[in-house]
């Protein structure tokens, strides 16, 4: 079912990028000139249900968030207009600013490691485990993607605790000095949450990159081998560049997961200790529903949305592979 498993190389890609133009031409033939207006109306009728649900439950709340962010409101009483004051608070109050920094720190774990390690793993599977082992590995590595994130949080909460498996393992290899309650220690709490993220996301990246790898033309590798290139050189010169698109997708998904993290953090650390793992998602929840500062919560949410866009767009730009 994986499309284009056999396709590779530039020709089909070019055909693909030309496809939209071709479709446009044929599309006109689908809609007969006479009934174009009616077809248009019918066509839009097809879109309206989905559009409606989306507008009402996603776009409208988004506008409302922006609206709330301009007021001071506790959710129950009357609201007071404060203009951009909430944004000033978000960008100046250390506790709130820190959440944004934490979000970016998580990006290092949630994004860079899964992509990097995923590339390595995928290429390993590609080269030495194409058969049974490869399929089984793929399935196993993908498992964490399927379970609820809160389950992942609880599982790792126990693993990372003082009597947990991680410390047991460390002691077993003689590193018992390093053992500690990873999620309760100021220095290690955020990296520990990061580890949970890696566990959840590695499988996704690996499988995605693997799929991309199967499309890379064998001939490229063979000629490289003839030139005497080793694994790493092949990796650098052929594999990574060919996977620009897939890497882009990986980065996009994982960056969003990092910046918008909530479930894992809520369940494993609650944002603690002392705010060490406070991420924007948690802070928005606390501000809106515990402290009843709907205005500031909304401002933080808007800032988060902008940050996500600001990071994703360049990634999308860069991962466009024009020549494949």
């Amino acid at each position, binding site marked *: 079912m994986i499309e284009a498993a056999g396709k590779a190389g530039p020709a089909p890609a070019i055909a693909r990028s030309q496809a939209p133009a071709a479709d446009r031409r044929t599309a006109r033939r689908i809609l007969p000139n006479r009934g174009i207006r009616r077809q248009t109306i019918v066509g839009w009728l097809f879109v309206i249900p989905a559009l409606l649900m989306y507008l009402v439950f996603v776009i409208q709340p988004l506008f409302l968030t922006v*609206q709330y962010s301009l007021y001071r409101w506790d959710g129950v009483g009357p609201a007071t207009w404060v203009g951009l004051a909430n944004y000033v608070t978000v960008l100046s109050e250390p506790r709130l600013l820190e959440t944004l920094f934490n979000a970016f720190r998580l990006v290092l774990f949630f994004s860079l490691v899964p992509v990097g390690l995923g590339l390595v793993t995928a290429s390993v599977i590609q080269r030495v485990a194409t058969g049974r082992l490869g399929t089984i590995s793929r399935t196993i590595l993908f498992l964490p993607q399927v379970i609820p994130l809160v389950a992942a949080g609880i599982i790792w909460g126990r693993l990372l605790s003082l009597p947990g498996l991680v410390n047991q393992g460390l002691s077993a290899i003689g590193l018992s000095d390093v053992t500690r309650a990873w999620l309760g220690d100021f220095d290690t709490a955020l990296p520990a949450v990061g580890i949970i993220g890696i566990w959840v996301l590695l499988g996704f990246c690996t499988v995605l990159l693997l799929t991309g790898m199967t499309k890379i033309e064998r001939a490229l590798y063979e000629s490289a081998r003839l030139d005497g290139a080793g694994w790493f050189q092949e990796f650098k010169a052929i594999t990574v560049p060919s996977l620009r698109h897939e890497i882009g*997708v990986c980065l996009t998904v994982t960056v969003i997961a990092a910046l918008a993290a909530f479930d894992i953090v809520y369940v494993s650390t609650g944002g603690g200790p002392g705010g060490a793992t406070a991420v924007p998602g948690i802070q928005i929840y606390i501000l809106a529903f515990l402290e009843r500062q709907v205005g500031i919560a909304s401002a933080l949410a808007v800032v988060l949305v902008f940050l996500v866009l600001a990071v994703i767009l360049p990634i999308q730009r860069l991962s466009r592979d024009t020549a494949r």
Partner: protein
Amino acid sequence: MVSIGFDRDRIRGTWAVRLAAAILVMTTAIGCASPGAVAPSPTPVASATEAPSASAAEPSPSEAAAPSCGTDPVVLNAYFETGFDIPFKLAEEFTKQFPNVTWDIKQDQFTNLMTATPRLLSGDNPPDLIRLPSMVSLVADGLLKNLDEYATAFGWDEWSAAQLAQNRVAEDGTRGSGSLYAMGLNYSMTGVFYNKELATQIGMTAPPTTVAEFEGLLAKAKDAGLQPIMQWNATASGGGLAFPLQNLMAAYGPTEPINDWIFQKPGATIDTPSNLTAAEHLQQWIEAGYFPEDANAIEYTDANARFGQGEGVFMFNGDWQNATYDKDLPGNVGFFVFPSAEADGKLAAMSAPLTYGIATNAKNADCAAFFFNWVATDETARQINVDIGGSNPGGPTDLPIPSAAEGSVTNETLAAGNEVAKDNGGMDFIANATGSIFAQGWTPELQKMVGGRQDAAGLLKAVQAEYEKELNR
């Protein structure tokens, strides 16, 4: 989690700009309408200043019959906290005695309840009975029913004034006086629990009578290779180190200023010299390693589990845990009130009602109030309170306090309750001062102190600053 595959050919840089521009234009258009006008206002609610006087102004109905649950079928809509059996058992018994009343009970974690309560009370199906984490802001928004008329009708005014004081809110928003807005299902007692076996091991023959004596015991425990104190401090459960901290505060200073701060009396501050001494002692305990090194990762349930398995000589907790302690360490758990700084100093302890409230628009307010009264006066209910809740049922002073099972630590906590009452040393919890002082003040600062990133003076200053910030909103 949402996965995304992007059609790279479609994403252009400029579309985002166009979209963003569109958003900006539309939001400035919308920006004129205030969300307060757009959003639904809570179903008819008296404003904060009106609520107390409105009820007082009502002519009290000639109380030939105090409010009751009547004879028609009633379903009480209730919200309890998970992990505590006592309200469930009381509800069961209540239905046994009054079969026309059944319960629709929902339960949730304490932390979830803290965020959910305002929403629940102002929603379409407000609870008849709900566990209240904190009250003042709820009263200010007119979400809680004023119970003064019930107090008169049932005669609660004649109970010990101290019992009801914590549930009173005055018109200026301070606690401790004014109209009654909540009732306690029982009155808990807190202090120091100890593992009798381990205590004997370190040579403790009688509960310590001074702080210095207690600290000596801690040192002995440490030297003997035992965990001196088992305590929780994880974010989800809230900073359990607040218990020993407050005990120390009451040991080194009077309880009134502490209660004033909790009750939001104007000008109250937690940053006082005696409190500083207390916090410094706590810091010393942390630095000496008396608390578990992973305290910041220990949740409430974990701490109890570990103490129950013999890890920890002492634990600062409350009598609501008695039943579990008796089960895990039968005959092996003792209790004493945290001593004062001096041998003959006044005893003090946190003692708070297990607060429950009635929503302003609750459908069965009368029945809920009757339930409150029943809990405090009915013999079976009082026994349940002692056996399962481990706590003092409160109520009229002429009713005897039921006795607990032989060998149960409840006997000790009840006796201790009397001693503290004699010294008038009851305090509310510093965690309850405002709706979020625990989650945003005490817990993170105590966690920092455990992690060596905060000192005593900084702790008090930071919490006081957070307190003032919240009060000024």
